[in-house]
């Protein structure tokens, strides 16, 4: 007893481009908002202490943010597919320590080789996560919570209480960690290139768009012939490789390594992505947003030190930011829904 099929509905007018643009602007607002917060924070801190903007201080800030940005880029690949990797902190620790061991054993190893070995080791860890998630169909949260402990455990048993000191590391490798091109740290350039390349890939390549499709509606993705398992697996491998890269960069930046390197980093990374507008339920968000989120979290850390505010507040501020970001996200989605739906009703 459904309504008769013939109740002619007035023709739906062609939707106005203006309103669609509006909707898209609203979506972009997530990233613009976070950039705005970053600018305000830098401004306030610099007003209090002008040295915050000195070249050396900016250099340090960028260098410190490199690890987080690299990891946030990788994590974004996963979160848009409605997955997550909690083991990245452990991968960073394992690879960083492994890099130290490698360089102690063979001090002549070229930086490029060290980088490749680290990336490969990280990718292998990512492949473990990815195959458990994609083939065994265990939720990513559970799998990577497990491998968080497994990888960290491997790290501990390998290090067995040993610490590698910067003084023992080859000079060439440590120089790579602090080198600059035209005043910009090489490490920061690497992170920038990563953001640009992965951002371009996610926006402009079929397989990149498929990652969003998978996160937006996994069942629909399967029905439209997207190889969901393969894509998710590849995202885990790529994220692992980036975590491995971050591990080598960590070793180059700090030189002093033990088994606790990178502990707890995973939560900061996820926080950075979420604050940067990557929807935790998948389907939307960009690596630019995530990278800016990482930069923001790092800047908060630095500016609280400069402003001589108790470190306790740093955690509280990060927490408040996450809640604000998620709240804003829900608000924007609800707004967008209303706007898009409202249009259909008005036109109908």
């Amino acid at each position: 007893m459904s309504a008769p099929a013939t109740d002619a509905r007035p023709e739906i007018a062609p939707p106005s481009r203006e309103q669609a643009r509006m909707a898209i602007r609203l979506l972009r607002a997530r990233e613009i908002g976070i950039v705005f917060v970053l600018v305000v924070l830098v401004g306030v801190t610099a007003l209090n202490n002008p040295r915050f903007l000195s070249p050396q201080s900016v250099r340090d800030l960028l260098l410190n943010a490199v690890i987080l940005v690299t990891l946030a880029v990788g994590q974004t690949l996963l979160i848009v597919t409605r997955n997550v990797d909690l083991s990245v902190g452990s991968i960073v620790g394992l690879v960083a320590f492994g890099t130290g061991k490698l360089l102690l054993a063979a001090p002549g190893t070229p930086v490029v080789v060290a980088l490749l070995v680290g990336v490969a080791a990280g990718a292998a860890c990512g492949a473990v996560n990815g195959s458990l998630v994609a083939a065994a169909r265990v939720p990513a949260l559970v799998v990577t919570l497990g491998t968080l402990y497994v990888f960290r455990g491997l790290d501990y048993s390998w290090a067995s209480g040993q610490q590698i000191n910067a003084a023992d590391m080859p000079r060439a490798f440590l120089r790579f960690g602090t080198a600059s091109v035209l005043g910009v740290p090489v490490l920061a350039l690497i992170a920038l290139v990563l953001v640009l390349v992965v951002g371009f890939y996610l926006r402009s390549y079929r397989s990149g768009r498929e990652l969003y499709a998978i996160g937006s509606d996994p069942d629909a993705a399967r029905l439209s012939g997207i190889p969901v398992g393969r894509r998710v697996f590849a995202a885990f491998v790529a994220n692992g490789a980036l975590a491995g890269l971050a591990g080598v960069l960590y070793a180059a930046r700090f030189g002093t390594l033990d088994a606790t390197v990178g502990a707890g980093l995973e939560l900061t990374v996820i926080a950075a992505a979420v604050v940067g507008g990557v929807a935790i339920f998948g389907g939307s968000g960009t690596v630019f947003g995530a990278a800016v989120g990482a930069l923001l979290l790092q800047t908060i850390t630095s500016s609280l030190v400069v402003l001589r505010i108790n470190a306790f507040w740093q955690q509280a501020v990060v927490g408040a930011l996450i809640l604000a970001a998620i709240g804003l996200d829900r608000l924007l989605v609800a707004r967008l829904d209303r706007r898009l739906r409202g249009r259909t009703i008005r036109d109908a």
Partner: protein
Amino acid sequence: MREPVSGTTPLLELRDVSKSFGAVRALRGVELALHAGEVHALVGENGAGKSTVVKILSGALRADSGGVWLDGEPLVLDGPAAARAAGIAVIYQEPTLFPDLSVAENIFMGRQPLAGLRRIDTDAMHAQVNDLFARLGHRIDPDRPARGLSIADQQMVEIAKALSFDARVLIMDEPTAALSGVEVDRLFAVARSLRNAGAAVLFISHRFDEVFDLCERVTVLRDGQYVSTDRVADVNVDDLVRRMVGRDVSSLYPKGDSDTGDVVLRVEGLTRQGVFADVGFVVRSGEIVALAGLVGAGRSEVVRAVFGVDRYDAGTVHVDGTRLPPARPRAAMDAGLALVPEDRRQQGLVMAMSVARNTTLTRRWALSRFGLMNRSAERRAAKEATERFKVKAGDLDDPVSTLSGGNQQKVVLAKWLSTRPRVLIVDEPTRGIDVGTKADVHQLLSDLAADGLAVLMVSSELPEVLGMADRVLVMHEGRLVADIPADRASEESVMFAATAQEAGS
């Protein structure tokens, strides 16, 4: 039974296809031959296996035995990608869009036009989408996200997607349910133009006028089995209905006479702002009262308020003369009310729990001692109930999600009837249930009424309303507009009441 058409090989063919889900045999020896340049209808009752056929053709499911032939060659459909590669496009009953992605991306996902470096050429993609919508005569901004599109617009996106394939085989699984007349005409124009271009079209619909309007040939399925294939010109609606139902339609509604007794449920002046207003009726013991009306008339909302799931602003509900406190389902249950909700998957069952647990969920206190469940008592009670209701379950410990829709509904009924209610409220008791089980459920309701239970049944299926009810209450836009006794209830009188205030539209 397969009828060769002037010696040509069918473009796409299903041969002797069978498929089971657990103990439920969804398809048994199904035959279907689609020819180039023809629109072929597939009809059957809910649960006859039409959607399973679609899923096999789309690669979402694999047949247990039998197979698919394309151009006379066996075709391996091991996934949706394989079906696409073979030129099979599907428009599903429920649109399957990505809400976060743009309309254009939804249409071209995985097939986006490429520019240099294999990157996506957004401009070309948008131009192609605009062309597609121009062909459909229905413009949607390609750049807007799919989130928030009306169901009809979503369906148009699906149609544009199918069109963009240049599909050799187009499968439409009840695509017209959400479309208005103009949109249906456009869809049919598209289907005809594809047919004229040499594609084979499979059209699934409950609307016979559409079948006769659009199709050349029609195949009937019943209870997962192939019944017949005919030229549309050689059959009429009565033939098709008889084959779909496979039995005398009246036996589907085994309403026995029962003596109606005292008033058990009395509802007076029930009002919820903006949803329903001043609803009043009585249900006597031994009586089946149907609550009919168009979708959205407020029927489910009324019964939810009566049971106390939703609050109401004014009015009273009495059971056996005792007034029920509003918004207290617990009190309603204690007074002898039971509600079998419309959406059994979300509201009626705990899908991951076992059949036994679900059956005894409402009696967990009676079956426990010192707060601990007595497991053997639970199993005994569950066994008794499932046997009484003829639930087809492999094992009582299997999760209830493995049962077919009809058997799930029986579990829900068993669960509520085990509380020995005085009034049973059922919301759409047979939605999405196969014909055989439907008759079981109807028999059950009829028996219960004969035993003196008062039954209030919300139903959108007119034959069910007319076949089962002693009295028909009709709602329109939140108000009760008619109370028709069975002997005066007819399709016309109920429909007229349900739409009366729209007369002239």
